[in-house]
């Protein structure tokens, strides 16, 4: 009976897509970003992080807010100011323009994006100077440079190296020894 009552409910992006708790993702993102040799020159005096959510998905927006809250509590680059903002994705092209215009150093996709949407963002970000990441590890094969998954009860770092090169992300070899490279 209970299943029958619940089945008609619309299933938005489930927290199941967020396999690593968001506070830990924020900490990991900040730590891993330091291994990007291009982050500091890209960021300048202020590390600007943009968390992008799906405009039609309330859960996506909520998860973006949770990540912003968590990132507000960690330091990405010591000695640099940082600014964390969230915004809805309008188009991939507009996102790429915003990254250039506002000198975004890190862009994070929230949950709720379908594979074609991720691919569109990936294509738009190619050639732009930005570290991209996603709350959903399923987005990494689609083109997010960085994501976090759980394997055997522990967090793992997923890296899309091809996309990293296309976005001028230079990850240290010492980091790559710890990550799972996603083709």
């Amino acid at each position, binding site marked *: 009976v209970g*299943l029958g009552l619940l089945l008609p409910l619309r*299933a938005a992006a489930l*927290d199941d897509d967020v396999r690593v708790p968001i506070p830990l993702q924020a900490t990991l993102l900040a730590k891993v970003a330091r291994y990007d040799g291009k982050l500091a020159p890209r960021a300048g005096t*202020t590390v600007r992080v943009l968390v992008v959510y799906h405009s039609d998905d309330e859960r996506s927006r909520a998860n973006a807010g949770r990540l912003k809250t968590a990132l507000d509590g960690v330091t990405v680059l*010591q000695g640099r*100011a940082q600014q964390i903002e969230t915004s809805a994705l309008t188009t991939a092209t507009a996102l790429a323009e915003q990254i250039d215009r506002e000198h975004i150093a890190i862009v994070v996709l929230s949950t709720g994006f379908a594979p074609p949407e991720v691919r569109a963002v990936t294509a738009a970000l190619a050639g732009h100077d930005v570290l991209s990441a996603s709350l959903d590890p399923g987005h990494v094969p689609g083109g997010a440079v960085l994501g976090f998954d759980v394997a*055997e009860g522990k967090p793992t770092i997923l890296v899309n190296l091809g996309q990293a090169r296309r976005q001028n992300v230079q990850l240290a070899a010492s980091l790559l020894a710890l990550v799972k490279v996603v083709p």
Partner: protein
Amino acid sequence: MRQAALSSPPLLVLGVVLAVVEPARAEAAAASLPAAPPPAAESPPLAAPEDTGELSGLLDEDIVSAASMATETASTAPATTWTISSDELRRHGVTTLAEAINFLALGMVTERDLDFVELGARGVLINGDYGSHVLVLIDGHAVNEPWDGAAYFDRAFALPFELIDHIEVVLGPGSVLYGSNAMLGVINVVTKDARAFAGGRLVLESELPSSIRAGVGGGGEFGLWGQRGQVVAMAEYFGAQGPAIVLGPQDYGVDAVTGTRRCFDAEGPCDGVWGGLVDRGRFQEIPSAFAHLRWGDVEARVRGALARRGVPSSTYGDFDGTGNYELDRWLAADLRYHAAPLAQLDVGARAYGDLYDYVEVLPTRAAENCLEGQLGGCVYTLSGRSAWTGLELQGRFDWFGDAAYTTMLGFDGRLRAVSSDDSYLDAMSQELVVTSAYEANEAAMGVYVEQTARPLGWLSANLGARLDLDQRFGAHLSPRAAVVVDAWQDATVKAIYAEAFRAPDAFERYYSDPTWWLASDNLGPEVVRAVELVLQQRLGAQRLLAGLFASHWQGLVREEEVTADELAAAVADGRLAPGIEYAYTYRNTASMLSYGLNLGFEGSALSRQLRYGATLTLARLQADWLDVLEPLELPVASGLFGNAHVSYLFGPSWPTLGAALRFVGPRPVDASDFEPLPVAPPQLELRFTAHGPLPLVQGLAYRISLSGAFSSESPYAVGPLSAPAEGYTRQETMPVDPLRVLAGLQYSF
């Protein structure tokens, strides 16, 4: 890239210094910054850090879900948790839940009586409880059944081990979300998803030369009607014969009924002597299968298993008889749906159903073990059956959308049917006499609520309670309160109060025999209340845990002789047969206090190729603490145990070598009337394991493991003599297999 990172040594030093002095919770000061200026050309580029210790430490952070039914890090969970990964299971040749607990877990320990295993935690082990004081879950689905509360930790756990992703061990009372049985803790075995179990698997393994295990399984992802799906399944067969052991001899003497030398063997002379070579009756046959299907937001799991095991040393059956056995069968199904109708609301529903039955068959030629008149022997049979189905509904609301304040409400309703009987089949006349039988249909429900709050960045609280209403015993409330403080950099301190209960099992509640046993009509739940203080500290890639605990156990079920008035009343109303002079029943009478400390350490080095860990538990037991605190010795329980392990991964094409040890202190022997009570000596077990890929054949891997036990004595008395007798001056105990060799192959395709 390494050269680029090192190209500016002064800045590298600066980066390292900055990393060291970095505060844990720096506030972002740029929230009100004006529109972004272009990057300053003169901004100094910081070199990427070469030291990955801190990051390695974060990657070793356990992510758990059993403590609060939500994904969270172990350091913030409202309980002491310890996780064992499948990688650790592989590195150390682990083949059973018991081995995983002994060699790799914190705070729990198991003891092995030939091929049957019991579990204890923090100094408490209830001998003969069939695992009913710990709640065992497979992906959140309870394994403990409602007839006897049983859960197994040996091969009869009956889940293909290759399917295990990780094992969460939650120490301490856990009824706040799970209800009955979670007194010592909760063990949640999490199975792999299709990403971790992609492709096919063939497994062939043996504990040389006595056992064989063969399995086949696989997993994959698919898309169907616009939804992502995945399936994982595996089936295996485990069979064992031996290894042979020698027991006895114990000169028991004459049969109390016939007055002649008692028969112990199924064949051969009746010489009144128990013992000899056990080479036929020690066997195990355990086929099992598990499947997990997910499609969109719907998940289904099915598990079926059978465990048939010899009982060669029971003094109620023929010695080493091939007809003596225990048989457990399980069939479980679990269907879940999870949705997020609102951004701040998760809801879920779980429907489940289980079938379980048990039978113990003990043929004997000894008339004294049979009913009156069965002079040629009999076949004793005990059977129990249970079936249960339930529905669990759950909702979690995130009040402000930032996970700072969440409320979870849950409902778990269940219908159960249990039945049992025991009987004696006359070996000569084939007449079957049923001496006890009962059946009951019961309803039970639990309602639980959990409130989490993170009012400050460094402070979080978790308050919860579960009310269980059960036709078997009435009502019981299980609260929990936990406060977690980020004390200093990478350190958390937890203070926890928690309660748990165990509903009386159906056997305890309903069993009766008019010749000697009175049903326990007023039996209530056993209850444990515990406080804990836990410190967890991460130091780079090293993690430490230190915890103090104290738990008070009340209403423990014990058998007691009924009073003269109770006896007279039972005879008068027909519950006991006329002329009965004494009888027994179960009562909630025992209480005890347990307190002590847990220490745990885990870490890695050399780019995580070297991994190591150790745990230690010290506990002390005291009885009747409300009156006089007196030392208590629970049979088989030890207040000192722990383990250590180290492994090294040479490279993807090379072997991974692992070494592990477990130790346990002295333990009082069970079921002995010797004075003083015999004590099994401390035990130390060592294990060395190598595993890796085999050359030439892609996908083929091997595993070899060698285990040795230093002491040959277990804390389990064996044989019919439990007191000194002529020629028998020392309690015989079940021997421990001194050496075990495991070899196996796995082919992945």
